[in-house]
């Protein structure tokens, strides 16, 4: 009872603080930030109280906006996502203080919409009524739009905003259909476990599509790269780290509450595997660091969906315990991805802040001028590549455990589970390559352009949130048992049959810790040795060319060239080049551009065709009366012929 009261008070405080932070945004940056911190902290306390406490929290109000009683519910699953909202909500607000200062002209607007976004995402997690869910969902989508288009002086930013808004509303349309059909079948808009009504199972497809547009799995990811690349970096961080997780939340939530079709598990695993491999392949081929990170989010959503799909599959085969492992892995990866992707976007933001460009081919050698950013980016890169001893490995390890245990049962579904594990491993190796490329091209070598040479380390206001996130990544990595309890709580909420499972991370913790210690020791040893012997500096071997320049380095394109070739059929890379000619070539270049294939090769041409046909149809309306009468006669004649044929047959 006391815990319930605490949670209620904390959620109330969080709401009030975030509203105040939004309201104070234009008056005082400090007061607004303090309110944001207080609000997210209160939300975090409430969420942790549910995750570590005895039971769920529920509250029904007499207020009835939209004709439905206002019902709030915070169970293990919602609280699990709420933690992420609060952590990244706070970290991003802190980062924005220095990254998006008043001189941008949109800092106040940014703070207001930021707090509104955090609040609306919290509302999405808390409400348990279809009508209110849609309201919160729409508010959340709109806040995202205003944040993405914060810097709306640029046409690219505005276009990205429109694309996001359009894609978002396509998804919302599906969700309106989903909730309306659900309410019609159940006779109530109130949401809750309804596993006992098998006739509503097909509605899962609507939910999968509607939430999938937000989650951004392949091929619903069309809005994601441009939105994440063009938004300010702290916005990219929350969009990529948290906002797309709301789509995952929807899929997990309604996959758990509703009965699902038999094929659901296979389909979700398939979508997950396709997103994982294609997402990271596209990421590898990008030249814009933020686009790379955005495509990498598609991959991570795929990784999460593989776990969720395995859980759905296991639940439909008698609640096999390996499904619990896979779901735990997926949920842990939700947290992990939220943390390290925010860290990476903050790192990319620092680079952008220091050099003014997102093009990796214009950067290079930032290791020397931005050592902190480089180190923290490296932590994020190791985590995202799923390497031990960081948190990315812990989450993916659980998914692997689940998949392998599922495969070793040798039941009929193993044919779906085993390829998923192989594709997950493929995606992991490509992720390592992609982040070797990103880290290498941006931070190693020598600066390729003047802005890169003049880069400076960012201030403590930006480093502190990055450091906090990197610490969280490391702690979850070396001591994964710490997070097992909340994860297990969320898994138990999703499927009570899986609650109370033994902690599989128990064995992993010491191994990770040992590895971390070994890595740290090796690093220290190398550092000491290099200090003792001194570094010998000499030019790189230059093939006999006497004056090497900074442009004679591996570019991002050349780094990814071979792997891009493997996916040429999907990428449709656009090449432009002029070969060097003659003994003294004056100029030569080679440009590779990987378009957003689904958008540029499928959706845009289809849209253009529809537009062309519509324009052609406009020619029928020319204003010449006799022709209008001719249309009428022709229409009548066609109808007459139809009636005649109908009668004759």
């Amino acid at each position, binding site marked *: 009872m006391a815990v319930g009261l605490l949670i209620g008070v904390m959620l109330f405080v969080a709401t009030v603080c975030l509203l105040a932070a939004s309201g104070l945004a234009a008056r005082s940056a400090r007061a607004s930030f303090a309110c944001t911190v207080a609000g997210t902290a209160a939300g975090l306390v409430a969420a942790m109280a549910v995750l570590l406490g005895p039971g769920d929290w529920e509250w029904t109000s007499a207020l009835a906006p939209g004709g439905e009683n206002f019902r709030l519910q915070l169970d293990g699953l919602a609280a699990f996502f709420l933690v992420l909202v609060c952590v990244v909500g706070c970290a991003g607000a802190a980062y924005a203080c220095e990254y998006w200062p008043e001189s941008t002209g949109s800092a106040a607007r940014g703070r207001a919409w930021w707090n509104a976004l955090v609040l609306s995402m919290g509302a999405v997690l808390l409400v348990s009524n279809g009508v209110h869910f849609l309201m919160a969902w729409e508010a959340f989508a709109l806040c995202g739009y205003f944040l993405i288009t914060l810097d709306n002086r640029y046409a690219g930013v505005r276009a990205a905003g429109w694309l996001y808004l359009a894609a978002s509303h396509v998804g919302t349309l599906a969700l309106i259909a989903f909730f309306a059909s659900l309410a019609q079948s159940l006779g109530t808009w109130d949401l809750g476990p309804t596993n006992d009504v098998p006739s509503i199972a097909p509605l899962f497809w609507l939910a999968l599509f509607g939430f999938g547009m937000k989650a951004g799995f392949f091929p619903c990811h069309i809005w994601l790269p441009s939105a994440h690349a063009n938004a300010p970096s702290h916005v990219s961080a929350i969009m990529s780290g948290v906002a797309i997780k709301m789509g995952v939340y929807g899929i997990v939530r309604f996959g758990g509450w509703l009965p699902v079709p038999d094929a659901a598990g296979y389909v979700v695993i398939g979508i997950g595997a396709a997103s994982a491999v294609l997402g990271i392949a596209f990421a590898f081929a990008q030249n814009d660091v933020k686009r790379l990170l955005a495509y990498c989010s598609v991959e991570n959503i795929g990784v999460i969906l593989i776990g969720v799909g395995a859980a759905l599959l296991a639940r439909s085969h008698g609640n096999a315990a390996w499904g619990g492992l896979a779901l735990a892995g997926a949920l842990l990866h939700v947290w992990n991805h939220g943390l390290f992707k925010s860290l990476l976007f903050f790192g990319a933001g620092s680079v952008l802040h220091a050099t003014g460009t997102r093009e990796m081919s214009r950067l290079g050698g930032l290791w020397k001028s931005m050592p902190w950013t480089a180190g923290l980016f490296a932590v994020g890169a190791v985590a995202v590549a799923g390497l031990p001893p960081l948190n990315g490995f812990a989450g993916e390890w659980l998914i692997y455990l689940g998949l392998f245990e599922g495969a070793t049962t040798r039941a009929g579904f193993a044919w779906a589970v085993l390829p998923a594990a192989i594709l997950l491993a493929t995606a992991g190796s490509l992720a390592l390559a992609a982040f070797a490329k990103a880290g290498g091209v941006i931070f190693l070598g020598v600066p390729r352009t003047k802005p890169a040479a003049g880069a400076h380390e960012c201030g403590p206001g930006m480093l502190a949130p990055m450091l906090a996130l990197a610490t969280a990544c490391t702690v979850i990595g070396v001591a994964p048992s710490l997070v097992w309890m909340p994860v297990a709580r969320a898994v138990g909420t999703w499927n009570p049959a899986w609650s109370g499972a033994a902690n599989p991370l128990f064995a992993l913790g010491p191994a990770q810790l040992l590895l971390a210690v070994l890595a740290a020791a090796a690093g220290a040893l190398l550092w000491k040795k290099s200090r003792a012997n001194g570094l010998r500096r000499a030019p790189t071997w230059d093939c006999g060319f006497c004056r090497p320049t900074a442009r004679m380095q591996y570019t991002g394109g050349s780094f990814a060239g071979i792997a891009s070739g493997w996916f040429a059929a999907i990428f449709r890379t656009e090449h432009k080049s002029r070969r060097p000619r003659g003994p003294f070539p004056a100029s030569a270049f080679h440009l590779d551009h990987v378009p957003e294939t689904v958008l540029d090769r499928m959706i845009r041409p289809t849209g253009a065709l529809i537009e062309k046909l519509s324009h052609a149809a406009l020619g029928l*309306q020319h204003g*010449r*009366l*006799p*022709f209008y009468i001719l249309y009428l006669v022709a229409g009548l004649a066609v109808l007459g012929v139809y009636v005649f044929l109908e009668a004759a047959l």
Partner: protein
Amino acid sequence: MEGRRGVIAMLNLLVGVAMGLNLLALGCSRLPSLIRTVATQGMVLGLMPLLLEIHRLDWRITLVAVATVAGKGLVIPGLLRRAMRAANIEREVQPFIGLMPSVLLGAGGTILAVALAGALPLLPEHAELLLVPGALASVLTGFILLIGRSKAISQVCGYLVLENGIYLFGLLLIKATPLLVEAGVLLDLTVGIFVLGIIIDRIQRAFDSLDTRKLTSLHE
């Protein structure tokens, strides 16, 4: 029985005349002769109710006949002539579809109408009448006039011919619902006056011309 045969022969003769007038209307190169043709057709049609119900004439049928003859044969053509004079229009009809092709199309339409009427499931007492093919032919002719002529007045004539076709269909029902046919006659008058009085006047005022080709600037 013999009397009924005579009536049917007479009626078919009138319908035949109306069909001939259709072709004549299509071949008219000048507006006054077009108007005259349409007026004649209207009067021919006006006589038909009398013939159809010759054995039990009452005041209603007579009223229908008189109103039709007066409306289609005198009032509307008179108004058309007046409008033509008032608007000072050139007398050529200025066809989109040339006169000869129009006539050929009309002849083809008439043949089609006769063929089509043969295929329709008609009541036995209507089967030997030419009313249905006549009606279809008039409707088709009206459409050809509407599509193929550019001047508003010739288009009004097209409407009238089209309407005559519908009236012929209506005659099939005169026994059952004379009121409906009367209402149709009233509608004729309304349409005629509406078209003439309002539309022509507006076109004239807005464009200083009655050529509908100049109306294309209204299309958006």
